[in-house]
């Protein structure tokens, strides 16, 4: 006689596949078998009893922080966004309580933080449209985007680092039990998360930043600084860094002010002339805008890089 319960069958208990989309809770599963046979040269056909089983509710969720890296924030910025996604992996509609907390291991503390749901479903935080939330209800396999929106306090280089924000989601479905040794009276089965999950998202304040200052001098045809028609305005833009670090792909763009005209051939980088054409050198003038490719600036304790961009316009 064959052993009808192979010993390896226990393995399924330890390798239980989880399905985000599955047969909905409450579905009735039916099984009937049909028998035909011959006895005493008479043919018979018989049907078994109907076996019915009801699909239980399976509760599980997935909570993800979607920003690939911590967003870079600067001192005093408002409404900076962290983006998360909550997915109902269960097989029934479920309601989830949402909460957030600031982690004590942060190097700075954000202000006016709010937990917001993506009300219009476009995946992007829309101020005034997407509203604050403390809970959501999701159908099986349905996802919702959540945002933490916060203001960045006044920071200096010494307080730079990370602000770590914790978001927690908990299923409101009652009587969650562990399987398979849980309460057999429960109609609910808890998944891997046990119906609760937390994830941390972070803001990143750099230990260095790029400073930019712009100044102007005026010189008219009679050599004074009165901005008369035909006078030349010389703009100087100074770029330098604060803190220790390296910044890449710096490009300076500046639109020529209204009522003035760019003086052809006046563009300088660190005192060296740049051509106005879109060519291989770092400078160009197009669409009434000067553009200068600075590239990389790296500051160390002993190296303090600076760049000056200068150009002239004539008052019309």
């Amino acid at each position: 006689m064959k052993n009808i319960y192979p010993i390896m069958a226990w393995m399924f208990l330890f390798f239980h596949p989880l399905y985000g989309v599955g047969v909905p809770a409450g579905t009735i599963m039916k099984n009937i078998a049909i028998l035909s046979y011959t006895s005493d040269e008479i043919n018979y056909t018989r049907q078994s009893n109907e076996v019915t089983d009801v699909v239980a509710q399976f509760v599980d969720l997935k909570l993800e922080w979607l920003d690939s890296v911590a967003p870079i924030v600067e001192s005093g910025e408002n409404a900076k966004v962290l983006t998360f996604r909550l997915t109902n992996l269960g097989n029934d509609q479920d309601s989830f309580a949402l909460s957030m907390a600031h982690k004590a291991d942060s190097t700075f503390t954000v202000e006016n933080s709010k937990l917001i749901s993506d009300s219009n479903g476009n995946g992007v935080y829309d101020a005034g449209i997407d509203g604050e939330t403390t809970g959501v209800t999701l159908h099986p396999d349905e996802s919702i985007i959540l945002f933490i929106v916060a203001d960045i306090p006044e920071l200096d280089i010494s307080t730079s680092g990370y602000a770590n924000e914790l978001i927690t989601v908990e299923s409101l479905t009652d009587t969650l039990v562990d399987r398979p040794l849980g309460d057999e009276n429960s109609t609910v089965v808890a998944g891997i998360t046990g119906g609760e999950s937390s994830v941390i998202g972070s803001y990143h304040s750099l230990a260095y930043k790029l400073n930019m200052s712009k100044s102007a001098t005026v010189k008219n045809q009679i050599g004074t600084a009165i901005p008369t028609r035909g006078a030349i305005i010389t703009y100087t833009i100074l770029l330098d860094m604060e803190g220790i670090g390296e910044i890449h792909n710096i490009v300076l763009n500046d639109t020529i002010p209204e009522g003035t005209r760019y003086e052809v051939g006046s563009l300088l980088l660190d005192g060296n002339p740049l051509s106005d054409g879109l060519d291989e050198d770092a400078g160009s003038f197009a669409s009434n805008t000067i553009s200068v490719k600075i590239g990389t600036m790296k500051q160390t304790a002993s190296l303090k890089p600076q760049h000056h961009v200068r150009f002239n316009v004539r008052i019309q």
Partner: protein
Amino acid sequence: MKKFIYLVLLGSLTLVSADAKSSAVRLTSSSFQEKVVVNSQGEEQLMLAPVSKIIPGDIVIYKNDIVNKGRKTASNLVIKNAIPKHMEYVEDSSLCLDEQGCRMLFSIDGGATFKNRDQLFSTNEQGEQEVADAKAITTIKWIIHRLKAGGHNQVQFKARLK
């Protein structure tokens, strides 16, 4: 070493024939799940229990008990069981309690035709013939050559809830 002992909760069986009065051979279906329990010695045991909480991904064992209550031998017994809706057959899970004189065939067309498992082919996306996936099986047929008066056999299969 963990010991796994299979227990059958006979109390869960509802032995009700569809037509007990007129048929000498009775067919009774039942469903079970495998569960691990810890006995009084602290050993883990694998037991069969009535289905209580089935969720997507779970495997259900469907059993069909065939009992000859008559006085004469029944012959050429054919049991057909369609895989329940929302479920898919688990490969190599179909069997007979008493294999002697028992043959199993499978269908992927709703029971219109039956073949041996290794002769069941389907066409893949490249248009090639290949052995059909277990998920494609729609119906199982067991053929039992004979069942003596008072005899009992059992056929069963496993199916996974989608």
